[in-house]
């Protein structure tokens, strides 16, 4: 399937899915050109998202009810863990914001530098252009995460991550809602494994903007983190 040098058969894309019927099939099809293994965790979508993902060739795990993106990620991790040949898990968004080429660069970095985790970052180059307000919120969020988790990252709330099997087996995300990104960073920070960051380009399309989390959500994230 893949023509590039390192095989991608041991890589599993974990895609949390909630009501993305219009784009998910294209996202899965596009990703599968490079990564044959895609597990989509349908988080109780009320539209035809799950069927669209399945027809595009993804393995679909269906939550019987909506549980939240954090819960969907953990379900995807547990599914991928059950595949013996899995070496890497990539968390990938369902709305088409992420680039497959960025994932390849992240995997290459992980292999070359012997890293267990590579986080995607919007702030390592200037390809991504979030709105000024969003930028401020994201900076505050990453500052908070760095202070509370003892990690040094430039963008902690990025959905694109490459995680080795060893780390995936030890992850246990319990924050079902939006605070899972910080929880994931915190758990990886506690493991004392080698991690790095790689520049990624997030496409803020009109579609993703219309669905994107509102800035009010940062308040919710903070509360969820304080009361964990």
């Amino acid at each position, binding site marked *: 399937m893949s023509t590039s040098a390192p095989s991608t058969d041991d890589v599993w894309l974990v895609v949390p899915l909630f009501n993305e019927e219009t784009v998910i099939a294209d996202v899965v099809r596009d990703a599968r050109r490079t990564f044959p*293994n895609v597990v989509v965790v349908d988080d109780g979508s009320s539209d035809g998202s799950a069927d669209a993902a*399945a027809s595009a*060739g993804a393995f679909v795990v269906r*939550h*019987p009810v909506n*549980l939240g993106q954090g*819960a969907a990620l*953990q*379900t995807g991790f547990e599914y991928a863990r059950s*595949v013996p040949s899995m070496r890497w898990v990539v968390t990938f968004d369902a709305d088409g914001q992420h680039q497959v080429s960025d994932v390849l660069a992240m995997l290459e970095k992980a292999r070359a530098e012997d890293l267990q985790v590579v986080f995607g970052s919007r702030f390592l180059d200037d390809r991504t252009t979030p709105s000024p307000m969003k930028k401020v919120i994201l900076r505050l969020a990453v500052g908070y995460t760095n202070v509370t988790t003892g990690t040094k990252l430039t963008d902690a709330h990025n959905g694109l991550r490459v995680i080795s099997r060893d780390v995936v087996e030890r992850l246990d995300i319990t924050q079902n809602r939006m605070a899972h990104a910080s929880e994931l960073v915190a758990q990886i920070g506690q493991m004392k494994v080698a991690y790095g960051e790689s520049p990624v380009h997030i496409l803020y399309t009109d579609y993703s903007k219309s669905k994107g989390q509102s800035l009010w959500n940062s308040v919710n994230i903070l509360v969820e983190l304080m009361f964990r």
Partner: protein
Amino acid sequence: MNTLLIIQVVLIVVVILVVARLFRSRGARAQAIRRLGLVVFAVFAAVSILFPDVWTRLAHKVGVGRGADLVLYALVVAFLSFTVTTYLRFRDLETNYTRLARRIALTEAPRPTDRDDDGGHHDIPR
């Protein structure tokens, strides 16, 4: 200001203690304390119905003008602890519920070995 100082100190300490305790303790002891608290509350409620001025006398002792104010303060504390307890209980419930739903989802999911050659449907028959 001076007359209110005692109640201010008491209330702040109680608020902090309630929050701190509810954050840490779960299990049999915490439950027992909650139930004892409820019994004390019920007895006191009955007493204050029979002797309404009991609140006023108590209020004067801790430096609050009226019994009604003291009742209000007590209510604030009780409501706060109720809120925190309920939040934590709901969160525990959600954790269990998530595990259950995840197990169902994973059990019903198609296995990687089920993949067709054309990479087509992976749906389980319904």
